[in-house]
């Protein structure tokens, strides 16, 4: 197995890493919820939210640069909100003339666009910190704690366990295709046959991956049955939250609620 580069978990010894996964999970969701509820244009609140997540990043020992780099990867979606600058009515900011069209940017539109981009940016950072500081099995514990159906949690767990095996399988399939269909490093050289032929080959690979996965799942099922699996998903009971973690949880929730209250008092 050589695809653990996919796993975003970064082992460190930091206060964020050792925090109970349930607390981390709930606080991350609350943070994203809080960012979503903050009215557009409440810049001081946005800056405070950014300060919160930045402190978490510093505390987590991940390196702020690492988190920001990963956050930038999720950014292209911002294009979807770009037109709002020009379509919202409001005080005219500047206008662009593109051939027959004249685009007029409004201050309200710009404010809304920047709000969306900023909210999205801090939210994705929170999600990155959660994923990078919490091993997946711990996330499953957190999901159980917030009452996600047990069957679904078990499916998630099994998917994670076999994800790397199947990604390896895909890499092997792709290497086999590359070695048999004359792939060149020169992008100008056409490789393989026609477009439909290439699509068909990719489809054949997808189909064979699917069949292999089905057969594998049969073997896994038999292995599970041989060890006494009877359809019931059993798991260790959840340990109690330590008082310290309760304090962290309530402090975090309190700060977020306070920020939201201020936001609604002054900006809505």
């Amino acid at each position, binding site marked *: 197995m050589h695809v653990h580069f996919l796993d975003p978990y970064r082992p460190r010894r930091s206060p964020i890493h050792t925090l109970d996964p349930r607390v981390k999970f709930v606080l991350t969701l609350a943070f994203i919820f809080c960012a*979503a509820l903050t009215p557009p*244009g409440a*810049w001081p609140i946005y800056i405070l939210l950014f*300060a919160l997540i930045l402190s978490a990043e510093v505390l987590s020992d991940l390196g702020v640069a690492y988190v920001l780099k990963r956050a930038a990867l*999720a950014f292209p979606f911002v294009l979807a*909100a770009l037109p709002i600058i020009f379509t919202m009515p*409001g005080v005219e900011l500047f206008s662009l003339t593109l051939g027959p069209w004249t685009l007029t940017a409004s201050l*309200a539109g710009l404010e809304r666009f920047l709000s*969306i981009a900023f909210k999205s940016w801090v939210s994705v950072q929170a999600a990155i910190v959660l994923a990078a500081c919490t091993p997946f099995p711990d996330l499953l514990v957190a999901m159980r704690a917030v009452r996600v159906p047990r069957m679904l949690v078990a499916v*998630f767990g099994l998917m994670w366990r076999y994800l790397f095996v199947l990604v390896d399988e895909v890499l092997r399939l792709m290497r086999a295709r590359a070695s048999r269909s004359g792939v060149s490093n020169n992008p100008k050289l056409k490789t393989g046959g026609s477009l439909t032929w290439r699509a068909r080959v990719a489809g054949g690979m997808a189909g064979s991956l699917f069949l292999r996965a089905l057969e594998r799942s049969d073997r896994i099922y038999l292995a599970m049955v041989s060890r006494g699996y009877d359809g019931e998903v059993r798991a260790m009971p959840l340990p109690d939250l330590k008082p310290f973690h309760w304090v962290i949880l309530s402090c975090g929730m309190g700060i977020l609620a306070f920020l939201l209250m201020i936001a609604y008092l002054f900006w809505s």
Partner: protein
Amino acid sequence: MLYAPKPMHIPDGFLSVAVSILLWIVSIIAVGYALKRVSKDLGERQVPMMGVLAAAIFAGQMLNFAVAGGTSGHLMGAAIASILLGPWAAILVLTTVVGVQALIFQDGGLLVLGANIFNMAVIGVSVAYMAYQTVHKLAGGRKWGIFAGGLTAGWLSVVVAALAVALELAISGTSPANLAIPTMAGVHALIGIGEGLITIGALAFIYKSRPDMLQIKDARPVGGAVVWIVGLLLALGLVVAAPLASSHPDGLMWVAGQKGFLDAAQGSLYQIIPNYVFPGISNEALATIIAGILGTLIVFGVAVGVAYLRRNRRATE
């Protein structure tokens, strides 16, 4: 880059809270029912089979083929999953895929995860199921029905899901409907061809090696008719609503306002400058600048403070 974000996954911040919560509720109902259904049909096999197939769809989304000019076609997988597994299992498999993508790879947000599950697992699967079953029936069980069905299911599931994304963005006031809907529909009409072609390729392979898998699924699963109707309604509804909404963006806003979709946050939408005038400073521009500088100082103060505490701690350890 093996793993690139795809335009179908909405990140956090792009949907209004009301739309996110509404779609969470719809998705929870659909996934809850699918869980019950699959538990009954598959029994104990459910956990290993759904888990491994979700991993396969996830990994399969990395399979690509060069299209033109450095772009490549990818697989979403809703069509192939619903053809081979039936609608209920496919909903579970895609929910798992979308959930892990959001939780681990930040491909799509967490608050909007309900919406992403709705678009890809509920819409994608039900529309693909509807399209495949319809074409297959029309072909009367002949061979071309499988491939034509696969092409239609792949293409339609991608396009209708993209329309849903655009409509959700428009209702949230994030993208203007008259731009977002034609753009999303146009781009995904092309992406959908890739999906359809890959689906045909996969079906051709399975038809040759395991034809029994395509025969068994002719037996209609329990509740299949419901999925068929839901798929048809979603496809028709979105295909009709999208052009209407894009030609009357104001109408959409009006409907959104009437239904209470727009959250209270949008009340301050037309307020041009938020009224945070600093005490003692009457010039608004100056006050804004000072607020900005202060805010930045707070951010760095907090960050530096935390870093300092952390360093001290480590020094003492």
